[in-house]
C-alpha cells in the first residue's frame, strides 16, 4: 500500500494537514458567538471583515478542483480552457453592482440564503423551494469534485491501496476530520483555514511560474512546445473526423462559445450557496465592494495556474487523464525537492477543504431554511434550526464521499457541468429581484422550470454531457446562457399575463443601507411574513 510512497513529500503533507486540522477545531473560539444559532454557525455571525472575507471568498471560490481542472482543460484543448480568465474578469463588476444590495437586504431582514431572499421578496415558497433545490443539486457534485482534487494529489504521493476502501482510505480519513470540525466550528473553521490555504497557494504558484520556466527554457519554449502538441492533436483528430478543436488560439467558430461560457459562468458563480454564504458573512456591504476590487488577485493566480497546462506539454508529460497533469508536472519538475512537492500537494488538498466546508455549510443553511422550515416544521426554534443545519452539513459531506467511493468520477464531473447550467436559472429571480419587484413569483418559477429543462436537454448529448450546443445552426453557445434567456423570456411574458398579488416583505430602503450601524438583524421577520 505504501511501498512507493514519496516519504519526504508525504511528511510535509501530513504536517500541514495536521496544522489546519487543529486550526479547524480551535476556530470555534474565533470572534466567539453562540454556535447554537444558525447565523453564528452558518454565517460566522456576519462579522467577517474585509480582510478575512478576502481570504474566505478567495479560498472558497478558487477551489482545489480549479487548480486541477483548469490546467487540465488547457492541457487538453489549449486556448479554449482559458475562458476561466475572462469569466473571472467579468464576475467582479457584477459582484460590485449586485452583491452589496443582497447583503443589505439580507442583513436588514435576517436572510441567510438566496431562498430566504426570494421568499421575502416574492412571497412564494415554491419559488423559494426551486431556488433552494437548484442550489443543493448544483453543490453536491461540486463537493464531490473537491474530493477528486484531493485524491489526485494523495495518489500522486505514491499511495496505492487495494479495493474500494483501501484505495480511498486517506481521503476518507481527511474527510471525516473535515466533517467533524465543520460540525463543531461552522463557517469559522474554513474562514480560519483559508488564511493558511491562500498563503500556500500563492507561495507555490509564484515559485512554480518562476522555477518551471527556467527549467524548461522560458515561456517562449513552453508555448512553442504546446503549439506542437496541439498541432499533432489537431491532425490526429482531423484524420478521425471527430470535429474537436485544439490550438494556442481560438478558431472563429469557437468565439461565441468562449464568450457565452465566460458570461454564463460569471452569472452562475455567485448564485451558488457557497458564494452566497461567503458574501453574506461579510461584516458590511462596503467589505463586499472592497473585495470585488481585491479578489481579482486570485484570478491572476488562476490564470497563472492555467499556464501549467502548457508547461505540462513542454515538460513532456503524457497522461491519459488530463487531470493528472498538474501533480505529474510537479513530481517531474521538482524531483530533487520532494519537500516542495509535499508543500504543493498539501496546498491543493487544503484548498479542497475550505470550499468543501463552505459548500456543505451553504447547502445545509439552504436545506434548513428553505426546505425543512417552510415545508416540514414552520415553528422551528433558533437552536433546533442550527442543530438541523449541522446535521445536514454532515449528510451532504457523507453523500459526496459515497459518490466518490462508489460512482465513477466521470459522473461527478458531468453532474458538475450540468450544475453550472442549472445554477444560472435562479439568476433572474435573485439578481433582478434586487432591483425590481416587477416580476411575478409564479412567472419566475415557470421560467426557472423552462430554463432547467431546456438547459438539461441541450446538454445531454450522445457522448455524455457537453455544455455547449449549436443555436439554430448559426453559432455554438453555452447552454446555461441560452436557457437563461429562455427562462427570462418566459418569466417576462407570464408576468404580463398573471396578476401579481403576493406580498413583498422587503422595502426600498432595505437594499440601500450599507452600514452595519442599523438595527441588529431582524431575525424572525422572514418567518413572520410566511405566516
Amino acid at each position, binding site marked *: 500500500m505504501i511501498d512507493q510512497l514519496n516519504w519526504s513529500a508525504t511528511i510535509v503533507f501530513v504536517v500541514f494537514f495536521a496544522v489546519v486540522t487543529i486550526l479547524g477545531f480551535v476556530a470555534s473560539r474565533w470572534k466567539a458567538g453562540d454556535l447554537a444559532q444558525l447565523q453564528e454557525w452558518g454565517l460566522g455571525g456576519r462579522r467577517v471583515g474585509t480582510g478575512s472575507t478576502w481570504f474566505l471568498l478567495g479560498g472558497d471560490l478558487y477551489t482545489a478542483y480549479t487548480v486541477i481542472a483548469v490546467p487540465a482543460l488547457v492541457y487538453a484543448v489549449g*486556448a479554449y480552457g*482559458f475562458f476561466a*480568465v*475572462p469569466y*473571472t*474578469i*467579468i464576475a*467582479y*463588476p457584477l459582484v*460590485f*453592482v449586485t452583491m452589496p444590495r443582497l447583503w443589505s437586504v439580507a442583513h436588514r431582514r435576517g436572510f441567510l440564503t438566496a431562498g430566504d431572499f426570494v421568499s421575502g421578496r416574492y412571497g412564494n415558497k415554491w419559488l423559494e423551494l426551486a431556488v433552494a433545490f437548484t442550489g443543493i443539486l448544483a453543490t453536491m457534485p461540486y463537493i464531490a469534485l473537491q474530493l477528486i482534487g484531493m485524491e489526485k494529489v494523495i495518489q500522486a504521493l505514491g499511495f496505492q491501496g487495494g479495493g474500494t476502501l483501501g484505495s480511498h482510505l486517506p481521503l476518507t480519513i481527511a474527510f471525516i476530520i473535515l466533517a467533524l470540525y465543520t460540525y463543531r466550528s461552522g463557517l469559522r473553521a474554513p474562514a480560519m483555514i483559508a488564511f493558511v490555504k491562500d498563503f500556500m497557494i500563492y507561495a507555490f504558484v509564484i515559485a512554480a511560474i518562476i522555477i518551471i520556466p527556467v527549467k524548461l527554457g*522560458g*515561456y*517562449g*519554449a*513552453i*508555448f512553442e512546445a504546446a503549439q506542437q502538441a496541439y498541432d499533432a492533436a489537431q491532425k490526429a483528430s482531423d484524420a478521425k473526423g471527430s470535429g474537436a478543436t485544439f490550438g*494556442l*488560439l*481560438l478558431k*472563429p467558430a469557437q*468565439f461565441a462559445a*468562449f*464568450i457565452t461560457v*465566460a*458570461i454564463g459562468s460569471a452569472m452562475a458563480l455567485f448564485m451558488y450557496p457557497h458564494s452566497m454564504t461567503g458574501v453574506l458573512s461579510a461584516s458590511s456591504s462596503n467589505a463586499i*465592494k*472592497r473585495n*470585488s*476590487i*481585491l479578489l*481579482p*488577485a486570485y*484570478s*491572476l493566480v488562476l*490564470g*497563472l495556474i492555467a*499556464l501549467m497546462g502548457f508547461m505540462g506539454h513542454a515538460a513532456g508529460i503524457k497522461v491519459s487523464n488530463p487531470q493528472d497533469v498538474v501533480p505529474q508536472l510537479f513530481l517531474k519538475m521538482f524531483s530533487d525537492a520532494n519537500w516542495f512537492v509535499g508543500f504543493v500537494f498539501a496546498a491543493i488538498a487544503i484548498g479542497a477543504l475550505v470550499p468543501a466546508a463552505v459548500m456543505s455549510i451553504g447547502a445545509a443553511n439552504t436545506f434548513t431554511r428553505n426546505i425543512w422550515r417552510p415545508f416540514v416544521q414552520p415553528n422551528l426554534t433558533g437552536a433546533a434550526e442550527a442543530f438541523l443545519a449541522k446535521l445536514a452539513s454532515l449528510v451532504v459531506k457523507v453523500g459526496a464521499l459515497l459518490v466518490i467511493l462508489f460512482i465513477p468520477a466521470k459522473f461527478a464531473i458531468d453532474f458538475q457541468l450540468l450544475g453550472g447550467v442549472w445554477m444560472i436559472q435562479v439568476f433572474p429571480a435573485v439578481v433582478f429581484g434586487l432591483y425590481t419587484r416587477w416580476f411575478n413569483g409564479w412567472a419566475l418559477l415557470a421560467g426557472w422550470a423552462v430554463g432547467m429543462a431546456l438547459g438539461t436537454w441541450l446538454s445531454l448529448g450522445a457522448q455524455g454531457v457537453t455544455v455547449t450546443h449549436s443555436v439554430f445552426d448559426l453559432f455554438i453557445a453555452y447552454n446555461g446562457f441560452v436557457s437563461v434567456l429562455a427562462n427570462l423570456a418566459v418569466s417576462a411574458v407570464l408576468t404580463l399575463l398573471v396578476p401579481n398579488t403576493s406580498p413583498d416583505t422587503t422595502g426600498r430602503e432595505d437594499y440601500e443601507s450599507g452600514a452595519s450601524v442599523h438595527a441588529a438583524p431582524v431575525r424572525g421577520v422572514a418567518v413572520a411574513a410566511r405566516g
Partner: protein
Amino acid sequence: MKYAYLIIPCVLALATPFYNTVEPTLFGFPFFYWFLLAMIPVSSAFIYLAYRNEAP
C-alpha cells in the same frame, strides 16, 4: 458613470476576436495570453474607479 467604469473591462475581456492573435508577443507569451492576464489588474483598477466615484 459608475456603470461606464464597470462595462469597460467586461467589453475588453469579451472582445475575443480582437485579442485572438499571437503577435505582439511579450516575454514569449502570445498576445492572447498576456492581454487576458494583464486585463485582470486593469479590471480591478476600473472597479476601484467605480468605487471611488460612488463614495460620497
